[in-house]
């Protein structure tokens, strides 16, 4: 039986509810995370796949179809709160190893809090927005984080350091990570359901959610309008001063002067590197 300790890299996979048909399917982000884990581990080892709750067998087979021989399905009560899920996961992940999870679930409320709660319970570092994961020669990991505007930040995890890695939503768009699908692997793979005894968690404050049909119109929070009707009409027609007078207009001077002025303005806004 595969465990997280044996394989060194685990992936937490989840069920996606299709927004159109309402059917349970494989999550694209989680499938990409499995593909990333397989790429990082190479052909010799395979990642430990884990899910909590009532994942339908068809969805579990869809994950196995990526070429993994085993998926661990941990059972919780039907109405389990997140604290119970974290408790079950904690006991399964406690014995070390790096765990990859998706950023947000694609079913239910999708708070995205589970990886953070798990890292908190395990007292392990958490790196979010993970776009690439590479195994180093000494058994450590190199984690690449995707930052806004195409920037990348790299981290190194020393050998034996356990961590929780949250994948980037952009991972599913990586073109070199096409999740494979093999029918034979889907049939040959096994779904194991070990009994896990979780320790009781400290009670935390939980809100009571009321489920209701979705409403298209959202009302934004807005202050009570105190302006007069005349002001409102003037604003709508754009005839007030606040409608915009425009900024400064530069007409005079040579082309070079104007270009210099423009460049100085860009430098003042620190859009272009200031002159050394």
């Amino acid at each position: 039986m595969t465990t997280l300790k044996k394989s060194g890299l685990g992936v937490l996979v989840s069920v996606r509810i299709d927004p159109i048909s309402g059917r349970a399917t494989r999550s694209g982000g989680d499938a990409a995370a499995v593909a990333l884990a397989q790429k990082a581990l190479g052909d010799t080892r395979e990642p430990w796949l884990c899910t909590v709750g009532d994942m339908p067998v068809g969805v579990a087979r869809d994950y196995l179809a990526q070429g993994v021989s085993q998926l661990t399905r941990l059972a919780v009560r039907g109405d389990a709160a997140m604290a119970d899920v974290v408790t079950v996961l904690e006991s399964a992940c406690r014995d070390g190893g790096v765990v990859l999870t998706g950023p947000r679930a694609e079913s239910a409320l999708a708070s995205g809090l589970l990886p953070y709660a798990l890292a908190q319970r395990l007292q392990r570092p958490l790196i979010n927005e993970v776009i690439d994961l590479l195994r180093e020669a000494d058994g450590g990991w190199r984690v690449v984080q995707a930052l806004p505007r195409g920037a990348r930040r790299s981290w190194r995890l020393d050998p034996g350091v356990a961590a929780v890695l949250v994948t980037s939503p952009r991972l599913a768009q990586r073109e070199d990570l096409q999740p494979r699908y093999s029918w034979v692997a889907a049939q040959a793979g096994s779904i194991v359901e070990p009994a896990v005894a979780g320790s009781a968690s400290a009670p935390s404050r939980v809100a009571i959610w009321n489920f209701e049909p979705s409403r298209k119109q959202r009302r934004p929070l807005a202050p009570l309008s105190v302006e007069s009707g005349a002001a409102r009409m003037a604003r709508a027609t754009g005839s007030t001063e606040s409608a915009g007078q425009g900024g400064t207009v530069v007409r005079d001077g040579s082309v070079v002067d104007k270009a210099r002025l423009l460049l100085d303005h860009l430098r003042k806004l620190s859009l272009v590197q200031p002159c050394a």
Partner: protein
Amino acid sequence: MMRRVDPRRPAFITAQGLRRIVLGGTEGERNLRQSAGAHATVRRPRLTQPVSGCLLVLTHPDSGGIDEHARETIAAAALLARADEAVVVMFPCSDLSLQLDAESLGIDRLELLPVTDAHTREALADAVIQRWQALRPRLVLVPDRGDDADLGRRVAAAQGMSFAASVVEVADGCARVRDHGGVGRTAGDATAKLGELDMLMLARHVARSELPFLGLGEQVTLPAPATRPIAGVRDLGRVAGKAQQVALEEADFILAAGNGVTDVGLFHELAQALGATVGASRVAVDDGRFPRSQQIGATGRTVQARGYLAMGISGAVQHLQGIRECRHVIAVNTDPAAPIAQRSELTVAEDVQNLMRALLALVRTSPDSLGTVR
């Protein structure tokens, strides 16, 4: 016979800025033209009573300022705060000299948290938790994106807060989120009472950012937190992205071409030299000079860049819709009366090709002209 009302009867402006007519009176001015926005311009502080509680907003600066999403979150806090609750904003930033108009944003106290690149996210979360325990805010509001969402989730997980992510609406004392459904349960919405929640992560457009009142605008600098490095985890540094490969929606600086740009090669050279992402107006795209994916406007993309340099774009309404959320718009156009001049803070009346050539020469001659500051 009906007596007609004199449309120019005497009136005067009161201290509150309201136009007042005394019936039958002869005092006051006859041709009093009141500016339409006069009421709106008189903004008073929201807090008039002694403060007994607060709402906390966590947000990171976005290239030296705060963006529309953070503004909306602060406005939401100001609108949700009771009459005796202050709006406290915690702002982790590396540059303490930033210019923020805290008052008009509705901030009562701005707490700057000096951080550097050496600070881990864990250290930052610890500093926020300390402040949270000291302030005990009724609610914590966080914009649900990027670093803010990460920080908020760390704090919520560490403190066991009850938490709502991607809140799409706050109304009638309830927060509304989207429910994606489950096995055997259809998708819909879910609501929870605000009294049961400790932290709200707001999606876009939850609140309007124009406020009719002011905040107190106090500013304090907190002591720098300990860096707290984690054993076994090393930061190998960051690599800035190439401006040309950045998606238009998340670009920081966009150089956009319109019908005035005929020399496309020169334009791309300039974009490279300035380190800007390339955008185009509909006319330039329809002409085949730029791909459709670079079109900005109603039928193209909507951008939120901090700087937008429009080259030879007249500024049709559809294009201005696409750049509505850009902070600094600068235009170069032969016609200084074009509509884009109304929107831009600096308009240069000049032929685009000549100006691009001069600008490129200037950028190339100045030292270290390699891309933008990140």
